[in-house]
């Protein structure tokens, strides 16, 4: 599903990732962890093609970064749902329109969009917030709207960058429950977090990073 081979990413003179190699199978639930600055966010950005590797090759869903044409990028991104660390919700649109956007981009009709957005909102437990604007929502609620937008297009991979970063324990547990449900439907999930509590005793696979190096790959 996802394969990194000797991937290096250098910002100016800062090496964010150094010769990283690993593979993730379809349907896996994987944590990416390590201290701040370890390269977790960079790794996710490489997967959703916001960054390009300086060296090495990344394979995603049958495509690879050596031969990928720029015009194919949008279609590849539709296979990848992203829960951004800063949410990236549009402040001038309602919850409904924010989630629907992911489907409008894919050219869906409004009728189909309506049903799918309602389903996604139900999954994250926010059906009653359909017509609110993002500013009127709490951090946890915004996080869940971002998740709804990421999964509404039924991507094969879901990436989340510090999804519990600013949330209290209850909210964080709620979010993790949603991810488990999504994973149970067959979606591959990668979560980048510096919070070890999230994966302690879960028995899930954890990739440990430090200063851009993959230092441990603990199979669950």
């Amino acid at each position: 599903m996802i394969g990194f081979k000797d991937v290096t990413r250098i910002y100016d003179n800062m090496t964010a990732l150094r010769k990283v190699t690993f593979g993730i199978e379809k349907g896996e639930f994987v944590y990416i962890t390590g201290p701040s600055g370890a390269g977790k966010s960079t790794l996710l950005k490489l997967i959703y093609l916001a960054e390009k590797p300086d060296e090495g090759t990344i394979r995603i869903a049958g495509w690879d970064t050596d031969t990928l044409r720029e015009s194919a990028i949008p279609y590849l991104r539709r296979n990848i749902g992203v829960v951004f660390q800063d949410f990236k919700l549009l402040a001038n649109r309602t919850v409904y329109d924010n989630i629907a956007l992911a489907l409008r981009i894919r050219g869906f009709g409004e009728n189909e969009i309506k049903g799918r957005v309602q389903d996604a909102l139900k999954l994250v437990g926010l059906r009653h917030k359909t017509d609110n604007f993002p500013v009127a929502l709490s951090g946890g609620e915004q996080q869940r709207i971002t998740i709804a937008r990421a999964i509404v297009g039924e991507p094969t991979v879901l990436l989340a960058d510090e999804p519990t970063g600013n949330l209290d324990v209850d909210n964080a547990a709620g979010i993790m429950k949603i991810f488990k449900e999504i994973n149970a439907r067959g979606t591959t999930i990668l979560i980048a977090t510096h919070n070890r509590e999230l994966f302690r005793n879960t028995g899930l696979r954890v990739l440990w990073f430090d200063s851009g190096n993959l230092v441990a790959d603990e199979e669950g």
Partner: protein
Amino acid sequence: MIYSIKLALKSLWFEKWIHMLTVVTIGVGLFVLGLIFFSLYNIEGITSRLPERFSVMVFLSEGTGNREINQLKARLSEDPIVERIKYISKDDALVELRTSLKDAAYILEGLDENPLFPSIEIRLKKNSFDRTRVEGLINELKGLRSVNDVVYGEDLLGTIYTIRNGVKTISAGVILLFSMAIIFVCYSTVKILFYRRKEEIEIFKLLGATKAFIRLPFLIEGGTLGFLGGLLGGAGTYILYRFINGLVISDFPMLGVMHLPLGLVAALPAGGAILGIIGSTIALGRLRF
């Protein structure tokens, strides 16, 4: 597609003040273009009818026989630039002169003999004006023994055509300049909108939007601005045309022959839309993912 139109309409409404300004600016530009095309059309119309109005008078020599006259008539009828010919005998010419003199016709009373020459009046084909060919024909005629003289308003026509070509060249320059100005106005408007929506566009890209999906609303927006400007300019041109016709027609009947082709009025919005789309395309530049 429908969603792109919605986005464009929403933005058009949301930014209506900046848009109003743009539309008016484009409208003025297209109004000027409309006037230029209108003038060119009429200059073209009037001048292309000139060869038809100016006829070539071929005065025949005294004592030219019927056989020679018939030969000459046949030769002229075959010429590709000749519309038709009219033979005017000495007697016809005198009758014509009498008629044109009207009350003063008595001055002809004292003549015992018709002093006029028979002649052939040649009407040239409309739009067939080609100086070298007309001059060639005239020189050929002048060389004939049976022809006494050839009279043609060539100098006047030549001058008119020189002026016409000058006007055309200047107009082409002005048209180019104004088209570029309109493109620039659309360019800067769309550029502003693009920067205002930069964050939104980044999110569109991350969610998997194609370049076409991102561009389309801006192109629709730019095209609509140009189209509305064209409607304004077209309306302006039409109103001015009606105004001129109403005001001036009685004082200067010569101007009554002016026409405003409906195609021109319709071409302004279409042209505006095209210029708007060109400006927007330049403003968007090369999108990168």
